[in-house]
Structures are given as C-alpha cells and as structure tokens.
C-alpha cells in the first residue's frame, strides 16, 4: 500500500468571477521512500495540491471531491483533531522559500520547540539536543538558534524550515517550490539538503516545482501538471521520452548546458480561465498538434509503457511530435496542424 494515495482530487476556489476549478481529477501515489516531482507552470495548481494534502487551503478554497489517503486513511473529511495528529508528525511541509514561514515575533528556537511539543512529550533537554542536531544537519550554526527570523538570510531561513520539517521525523515531506526566489548558488545548496533527506533518511517526498531540471535530477517519478490536470505521469521516461506536447514544450523551455546551441523555445499563449475551463483537453488552445477531438473531449489517461501514463488523444504520434517540437517554427504556428 502506498504511503500517500491521491485519487480524483478536485479542489475549487471561490473567486469574484465564480468558482474556479483549480485542481481536477488529480491522481498519483507516493510509496515509502519515493520522491515524486510535481512540475508545471505558475498557476497550474501544484501548490493547491500541496495545501490540500496538508489541509491548509485558504478560506475561499474547498476540496470538492476525491480522496487523499495517507497510510490507508482518508484525510478528506477527517475531523480537525484527527488531521492535527497527522500533520507534521506524518506529513511535514517545507514551504516556498519566498514565504515568511516563521513567526517574526518568536525566536526560531521557540518555533521548533513548538513543533515538537504540539505532538510529543519530550523533555526540554532532549528537545534541545534534537534541535541542535538538526541545525547541524542542515548546516546552520547551533548558536544561532535563539535568533529571530529576520536575522537570518533567505537561504538560512529555508534551511531552518527544513530543520523544522524534520524535527518529528515524518515519513513524508512536501516541499513546495523550496528554491524559488533564492539565488542560484543557494538554490543548489538547498536542493542538496533536500536530496539528502531523500537519500540519507529515506523520506518520501512530494517535490513541487516549475523547474524541470530540478525534478529530473532528484525525483523517482514525475507528474506534469497543467491547468489543474495531470498531463503526463511516469518515471524518468517522462523527460527522456516525453509523449505529451506540453511536456515537450516544458523540456524545450529549459536551457541545457550540454546543448548550448539549442534555441530556447517557449510555449506561446496563456493558461485557460479555470472558472470556465475548456471542455476538452485543457492544453488544446496552445497545442500545436491539437485537433477538433482535442477541443471536444477530455483525453483519457493512456498507458504508453508500464507506469507511464499520458493524457493525450494522439499518443500514437508522439514520435513525430518529438521531432517537430524541436523546431521553433512549430510553436509559432507556422506549420499547419498535426
């Protein structure tokens, strides 16, 4: 049984314009010790998935359907008390680095202590030892533990957040854009830190990012999200041999240092309005290979290889798509359809 099983998750947001279908029919599973990368552009709903799992959706959001099973128990519909017991002890969150995840008027130490005492009885001395241990683990000076959050740099704050996530040794860690907003060197350090959590401590992880390269380096399985739906889901093959046009577009958009001659190709257009989402495939408006079928019908999840599914009507033409996707002209709509 998987550690975390999300099935047909549906999250809606109340907005001034109506109800937005932020997340629709999302399904994935994370086994013990596995790292799943959730990739997609800004606004595709990946953070919403993280928040839904932790149960911290904003007041305007609600889970409209589906299940989130942790260790067999459905988190959707749990009482607040039950949810509280699961939080942090079993599933911890490393938030976006741009977030001010720490309360500015309390010391970092007190907030770490708080994380522990909310769930376990641990004598103070033992708590202090654990915190010092974790600080050392993430590369922070133990002496800084009594400082206030504003005295830490961005990278240090993020490390503190990682330390805090580890404090109860949870089996599953959700990292939501952990490196956004940090400069490149620091990004690398933080990613190493996170990889260590996975490799050395065998933590299961849900790594959420918009950066394909990060996911390629760190994750066992990858899910590509667009406009609230999963477009492609599989292992390494997802980016070695992508099937879905959107995945192709994503791969194109990231520079490859080994292939400096390749031009960066971006996908023209903008994501659809989720209050009135497209009837068929949500990507069809920006897809250079879209047909009328794509506009009318939601593509089923087609299995192209064991453990590799794609939400596209035209998976049989993937080979051709891969060729054509490398040509910038395709994305500029200069050559007619598929």
């Amino acid at each position, binding site marked *: 049984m998987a550690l975390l099983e999300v099935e047909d998750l549906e999250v809606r947001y109340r907005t001034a314009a109506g109800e937005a279908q932020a997340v629709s029919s999302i399904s994935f599973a994370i086994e013990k010790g596995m790292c799943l990368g959730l990739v997609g552009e800004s606004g595709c709903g990946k953070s919403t998935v993280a928040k839904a799992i932790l149960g911290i959706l904003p007041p305007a959001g609600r889970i409209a359907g589906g299940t989130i099973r942790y260790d067999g128990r459905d988190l959707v519909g749990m009482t607040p008390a039950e949810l*509280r017991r699961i939080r*942090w002890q079993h599933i911890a969150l490393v*938030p976006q680095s741009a977030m001010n995840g720490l*309360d500015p008027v*309390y010391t970092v130490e007190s907030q770490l202590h708080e994380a522990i005492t909310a769930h376990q009885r641990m004598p103070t001395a033992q708590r202090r030892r654990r915190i010092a241990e974790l600080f050392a683990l993430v590369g922070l*000076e133990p002496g800084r533990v009594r400082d206030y959050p504003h005295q830490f740099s961005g990278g240090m704050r993020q490390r503190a957040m990682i330390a805090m996530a580890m404090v109860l040794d949870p089996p599953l860690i959700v990292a939501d854009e952990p490196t956004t907003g940090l400069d490149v060197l620091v990004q690398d350090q933080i990613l190493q830190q996170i990889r260590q959590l996975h490799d050395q401590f065998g933590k299961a992880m849900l790594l959420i990012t918009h950066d394909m390269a990060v996911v390629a380096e760190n994750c066992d399985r990858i899910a590509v999200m667009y406009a609230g739906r999963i477009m492609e889901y599989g292992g390494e093959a997802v980016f070695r041999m992508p099937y879905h046009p959107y995945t192709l577009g994503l791969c194109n958009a990231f520079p490859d240092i080994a292939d400096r001659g390749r031009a960066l190709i971006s996908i023209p257009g903008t994501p659809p309005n989720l209050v009135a989402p497209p009837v068929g495939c949500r990507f069809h408006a920006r897809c250079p290979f879209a047909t009328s079928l794509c506009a009318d019908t939601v593509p089923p999840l087609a299995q192209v290889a064991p453990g590799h599914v794609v939400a596209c009507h035209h998976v049989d033409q993937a080979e051709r798509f891969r060729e054509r996707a490398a040509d910038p002209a395709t994305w500029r709509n200069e050559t007619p359809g598929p």
Partner: protein
Amino acid sequence: MAIRGAGWKCSADGRPPRMTNLLYAALRRVLLFAVTVWCILTIMFALFKLLPGDPTAIFLDNNMSMEMIAHQKQLWGLNDPWWLQYLHYIGNMATLRFGDSFFQNQPVSEILLEKVENTCAMIVPALVVSVVAGTILGALAGWKRGSRFEQATVTTSLVLHSAPSFFVGILVLMVFSYQLRWLPPGGMVSLGGPDRFWAMITSRDYLQHLILPGLVLVSREITGPILLVRSSMLEIKGSDFIDILRAKGLTEPRILTHAIRNALLPLVTYIAVMTGLLLQGQVLLEIIFAWPGIGRELVNALGDLDYPVAQGALFVMALVILLLNLLADMLYGLIDPRSR
C-alpha cells in the same frame, strides 16, 4: 524611527550585540523628547507673553501705591529683560515650578496635581476597559471574518468612532440624568463626601458619577482598538506563517495567540496617539459633566486670566502626551524584535 548613523559594532561571531543598540536607541529618543519639550516651552512662552491684559492690573488695587505695584512686578520678574524672563521660564517649567495661582491661594503645582488626579480618575478606568475589551473584540472580529458578529462590530464601531462624543455626552446627560434621574448630573463626587483621593475613588458615590462620562468615553475609545486590531488581524491571518502554524498541527487557540501577538504591535503606538487625542476631548467632557479635571481647570483659568494656572495646565497636558509617545516608542522597540 530609524536608527540612523548607528554603527553596528559586531562581536566576535559577527553578530551585532543587542544591548548597546537598544541603549543607543533609547538615549536618542529621550534626547528627541527633551528637544521637543523645549520647543513647546518656547512656543508657549511666546504665546503667553502675547496674551492681552496686564496681569497685575487685575489684582493690584487702585489703592496700592506705585511702589507696591513696582515691588510686585519685581517679584513676578516682570521687569526683567525678555531673554532673562525666558531663561527663568524654561528653568522653572522644566523643573515643574509653576509659581502661585493669581486667584486661588495655592501654588499652581498643587492645584494641577489635584486636577490631574481627577482627570486620571476618569480617563484611566475608561482607557483600561477600552483597550482590553477593544482588543479582544477586535481580535475576535478579525478572526471570525465574514461573520455577522464581525459586521455588527465593525458597523457599530464606525458609527461610534465618528460621532461627536461631546454631543453624545450631552444626550446621555439629558436622558439619563435630567429626564430619568437615574444618575447624578455631573461633578466627580457629591458634596460632603470623602476628601482624600483614594478614599474618594473607592466610594460608591464616585462610581455613580463615573458611569455616564465613563460610558461616553468608553463608547468612543473602544472603537479605535477594535478597528485597529481587527485590520491587523486580517493582515496577519493571510500571512504565510499562519499557514505553517496550521500545517504544524497546532490548535486554533494556539494559532490565535500567535496572531494576537503579532497584531498587538500597531496597537502599542496607537495607544500613545489615542491618549493624546483623548486628552483633548477630555476638555469637552469635563465641561459637560462638570468634572474637576485638568481640562476644565484650563478653561476656567483662561477665562479668569489666571496665567500661571493656564500655562501650567497646558504644559502638563503637552508633557503627558509627549511622555506617552516616548513610552510607546520604547515599548515598541521592546516588543517588536525587528525594530532593534
């Protein structure tokens, strides 16, 4: 206030020491306070020198000889050149030596002390109630966003906040005192009651007299904290760290405590400002309710042209406001770690 030019001395591990920065900041604020007081004193000196009427003319009998008049003038230092008078003035005022009242046979400082005590007897209870109750109500209103409680609280607060409190005072007097005769029409205590301050304020009589003006005061002053804490709370509710607190599995009351702790920061500065404004409205309420406080004393003194008292009263009021601002500044530095 920015700590400008404060060079941060770093200790061995590269971090700035906290104590000396706090001290420096505190000293700077006290210095600023002193300068401001001096400015105000100077303005007041100029003002009172320009007031009409020769103060001596009122008391000095026409029967007094020219010598005696000259002698009195000498006593009051009215013959000295203006700059000498100024220096004496600053010296006296700064040490709170206000001289003697022209009319009442008492030193001004004694009179003022009594009046200040009386004013406090009205303000302090009202303030305490307003701040405590206001903070709680405001925090709840902000936390329970979108509820009917919030709507009702906000609307009522808005109306009460803007309505002219002196008219509310008049209305309340008219209804409860004159028409219904439930409560006394004014004054702080009835005649014939205890004389000593502490005995007075613990008497039931005082409480009866306090109800109406206290009510009017609270009804207006409570709105400030309510609205402020509410908007503070709303901002904080949307903060990232609140999400993390919830993700950490903390209980709602604990999260609320975190939120309130953050929401209190603007309240501290507000209290200083609030009290300053309060002191002004005080004058009106003291007149309406015939409360023998410092505001009423100032009005009477100005009417009687009793300059020492008027000066003293004005200065004391300004001093209190400035002291409170200073206090709030310092407190803020203590509570908000970011400002250090």
